[in-house]
């Protein structure tokens, strides 16, 4: 079991460019979560999926951010027209069920210049 895999580990984009982050959950886990971590805001919930269906996206910025889970083996977080304030570590986690134990990936550090 390789755990939750996130790619890329590091991404640098210019302001206004698009960034796509990938997450491969642990096989058999039905819930996939996205969080964002910054020094100022701490660990913020963004969105989560259960059995590939979006359940709660209340933490997602309303513009420019979108997340998908096209199949059970991966989820993507896309940020359009990136801004410097989007710079953060984006963390993906999976769980056997919504309220179960979270297993985190190593994160994708996004830097927007």
């Amino acid at each position: 079991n390789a755990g939750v895999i996130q790619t890329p580990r590091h991404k640098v984009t210019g302001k206004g460019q698009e960034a796509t982050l990938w997450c491969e959950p642990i096989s058999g886990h039905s819930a996939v979560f996205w969080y964002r971590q910054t020094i100022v805001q701490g660990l913020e919930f963004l969105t989560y999926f259960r059995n590939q269906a979006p359940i709660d996206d209340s933490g997602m910025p309303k513009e420019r951010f979108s997340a998908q889970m096209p199949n059970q083996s991966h989820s993507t977080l896309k940020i359009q027209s990136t801004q410097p304030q989007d710079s953060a570590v984006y963390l993906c986690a999976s769980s056997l069920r919504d309220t179960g134990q979270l297993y985190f990936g190593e994160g994708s550090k996004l830097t927007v210049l």
Partner: protein
Amino acid sequence: GMPVEQNPPALSLYEGAESGLRCNFSTTMKGVQWFQQNHRGRLITLFYLAQGTKENGRLKSTFNSKERYSTLHIKDAQLEDSGTYFCAVSNNNAPRFGAGTKLSVKP
């Protein structure tokens, strides 16, 4: 949202000492998870509790859903215990995190 408060924000211990970290939440929760985030940023799971108490070596955690808190107790602190400790609580939805307790263990 469901505010999650962690205390203290920062803690300094000498090697061999012990202390407790607290996680308070505003509504009844179904589960709590404690993590250590090391200097490389990786979130390491320490405990997941749906009720009661669990122990693992020098660490012990309790979860009191009715009283709306959880604790993490560290005894015989070691240098490698340094890092930031987060609790995350959930209630039929995605877990929400506290702001963390930054622990520094000194020789």
